[in-house]
């Protein structure tokens, strides 16, 4: 039962990532695209966790943790670039 449910959950998460991709492609402003990237990495993180349940492998958590940290740093750096026009000042 868990396998079938995990497959359904993976399908829903793939749909969610397609919606994020739509916003990433047609966002009118740069900030919309940054927000779409933020949501995209969060969806990827959820996908990795569900994939870990589906494949019964607990190695995926480390991947999810690294993706979370790098995604946060990326969002903050892009916002900082929007504010200052420079990343480190």
């Amino acid at each position, binding site marked *: *039962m*868990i396998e079938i*449910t*995990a497959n*359904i*959950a*993976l399908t*829903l*998460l793939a*749909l*969610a*990532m397609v*919606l*994020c991709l*739509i*916003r990433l492609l047609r966002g009118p*402003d740069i*900030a*919309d695209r*940054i*927000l*779409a990237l*933020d*949501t995209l990495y*969060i*969806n990827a*993180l*959820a996908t990795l*966790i*569900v994939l*870990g*349940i589906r494949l*019964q492998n*607990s190695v995926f*958590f480390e991947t*999810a*943790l690294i993706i*979370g*940290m790098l995604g*946060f740093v990326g*969002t*903050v750096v892009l*916002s*900082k670039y*929007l*504010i200052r026009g420079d990343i480190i000042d």
Partner: protein
Amino acid sequence: MLVTIAEVLIAALLLVGSGFALVGSYGLAKLGDFYLRLHGPAKATTMGVGSALVASSLYFTVFDEGISVHEVLVAAFLFMSAPVSVHMLVKAVLKNEHDRKRMPPSRPDA
């Protein structure tokens, strides 16, 4: 018996989490304004990833040997970092809007 209850619970958590992620991303794609669009992904972060993490913690606790708690790491980091990144993003947008506003034109005949 206990295993069956855990299976039902894990399945429900998986469905709820992915449903929330889908609804949050739909809101991101559908809503009309940037400030409205900020509302959707918060649901995807909090409920979507949170439910998936609880489900995987339950799964590896019940079906593997031993208590599995290292999902708490991901959850704690994500719940700390999501408001900070949204705050930075809103600060950037507010500054851009402030810079874009022009002063009203001066009237030479006044």
